């Protein structure tokens, strides 16, 4: 395996969150960036929590690391004490060039994968994640697209065929790939409804808009309603963002 996609698995390590069943197998072909983090209130210095909880947190992470490695993944790990979990997750994504973040929910054996395709932007990263994670598995892949009004069938054809081709280039048997298109629906509801029958969802991160500030990121909403594991493919980092 040369192209293991780096996938972030964030776990609130001291609050009873653990690696759910099925997840190690799911990520067997990935490079797992295992982030154990502990969110503490502002009254507490991060070092203070570290002094008291480091041993316990490390023991747990040791366990999880072993589980992932046993399943076949390569693992890199971090333990972070923070006041702001989101900032920690975002920073770890950037520092480790993670292609996707896993919303860890339990799953059985992975037989069918639901891939929500939004548009041409980020399709390459989507392909790398799907091919890297599921390429060596015996799973069928469904590419799903909710069309917008002005989109012609031709546009959609080009988009999905292009993705199928990329996946083929990356060693996926294209006969296992299906495509589905829907029109005139709210994309979020459509994705939640359509994905219900699948084992795992892969979707892109959306641009933050006012609605996302109010209702949360669509990916989060899907994860909350889907109940299975969701791989959220991250946007390409802006070239000069890192030196902020």
């Amino acid at each position, binding site marked *: 395996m040369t192209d293991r996609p780096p996938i972030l698995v964030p776990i609130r390590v001291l609050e009873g969150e653990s690696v759910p069943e099925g997840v190690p197998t799911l990520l067997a072909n990935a490079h797992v960036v295992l982030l154990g983090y502990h969110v503490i209130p*502002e009254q507490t210095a991060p070092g203070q929590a570290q002094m008291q909880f480091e041993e316990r947190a490390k023991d747990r992470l040791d366990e999880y690391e072993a589980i992932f490695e046993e399943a076949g993944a390569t693992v890199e790990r971090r333990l972070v*004490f923070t006041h702001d979990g989101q900032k920690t997750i975002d920073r770890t994504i950037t520092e480790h060039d993670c292609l996707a973040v896993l919303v860890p929910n339990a799953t059985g054996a992975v037989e069918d994968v639901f891939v929500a395709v939004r548009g041409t932007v980020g399709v390459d990263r989507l392909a790398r994640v799907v091919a890297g994670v599921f390429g060596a598995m015996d799973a069928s892949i469904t590419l799903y697209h909710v069309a917008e009004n002005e989109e012609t069938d031709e546009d959609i054809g080009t988009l999905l065929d292009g993705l199928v081709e990329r996946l083929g280039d990356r060693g996926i048997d294209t006969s296992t790939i299906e495509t589905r298109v829907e029109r005139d629906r709210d994309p979020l509801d459509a994705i939640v409804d359509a994905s219900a029958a699948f084992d795992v969802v892969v979707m892109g991160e959306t641009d933050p808009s006012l609605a996302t500030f109010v209702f949360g990121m669509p990916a989060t909403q899907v994860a909350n309603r889907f109940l299975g594991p969701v791989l959220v493919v991250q946007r390409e980092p802006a070239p000069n963002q890192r030196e902020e």
Partner: protein
Amino acid sequence: MTEQPVDVDPGGQNVAGEAPAAEPEAVTADTTVHDDDVELERTIGLVGGLAIGIGTMIGAGIFVFPGLAANNAGLAATVSFAIGGVIALLVALPTSELATAMPRSGGGYYFISRGMGTAYGAIVGLGLWLGLMFASAFYLVGLGHYASAVFAELGVGLSFSPVTGIGLLFGVVLTALSIGGTENTATLQNVVVGILLVVLTGFLSYGVLDAVGVFGRGSVPGAFFSRGHFPVLTTAALVFTSYLGFAQVATVAGEIKQPGRNLPLAMVGSVLVVTVFYVVTIFVATSAFGANRLGQFGETAMVEVARDFLGLPGAVAILGAGLLATFSSANASILSASRAVYALSRDALLPRKASEVNLRYGTPHVALLAAGGPILVLVATGQVELLAEVASFLHLIMYGLMCVALIVLRRRNPEWYSPSYRVPGYPVVPAVGALASFGLIAFMQPASIGIGVGVMLVSYLWYRYYAGDVTLKGDI
């Protein structure tokens, strides 16, 4: 991202057999890195740092001291505040350099223990903890005065003075909130400071225009040095409590993002902002009433000034602002005191138990109680000026020693000492800063000096008894 290595190696054991916690391996813009990929996230930005500094300071200087200062020094109290501001700036610059070289929790205590050794560190660290308690108690008594003024405004006649009682009540409430509350209070602090700055800017702009005669009243003239020259210095010593907040920024240095940039900006910036506000406030307040009448109003003199300018709405606005400001100052000081306890306990100068984190709330309940409990005793004394001066005394000792530590470190220039910000005017600025800090102490009341020296002595004896074998000094 530049990684800054940390190469200080504490050693030894205290009486209970505890050794200082290991130092981190490196400091980055976003984290403090310990071995085995354990990281401590930095989450406070520039705005947060400024809010801590300004929020801690502004409560005292504007809402408690104007009446007291005018009573002591007359119109020249303006100069007293300016002197305080200059000294604070002379210390804030060296502190910035130290903080960028050692952006770790504990602030002044950390710099001095690493630069000058455990004995000095213990005196400063325990002194800082106690000094913050005196400061908190002072803010709470001020809060009590404001709350009492609210009762007076509402026409509720009380047969006793509620000041101490209210101070105690809020002391208990604050301690309980910081132990049990896990809400995000940093945003709230930023908002509170923002509101205060807006209210004060509006009020002071009006006041300045009025004082220079735009509204046709002209100011009440008064002899500038109406009480003579000496009281200007004693008043400067008294009101220096209004400038303690910038060091609180250094206490949370371990949590500031991009410490090399944000720490100096937050510390120097907050000192400059509050100095301007203080000087203008005193100018406006004294020109409204003249120093004599202002002095008679005591702690809540600003309410009367606002009433004079803007009638009842003005008085209500300043009452509200005063409550907010003293509350946020007291809160910030209790939290800083708890950080100081943590830093001491990390270095085995206090029992490890003292920084224990509560499993239910994730808050350091022992450290918070160790701060909140004694504060109540201090509030009960109700001595505003004494509390303020002892707090200033203990801080000034730390400030002076920080300047000395900077000179020591610069002269020895150890390999691990590589600050990204360097103080301008070395060695004059830190030397003058140290002399001014120690010098200001001489102008305090004998009682304050006595209590301060007592605290230092007890701190030293505690160190000899409890942690005589602990070495914290960096390799210099």
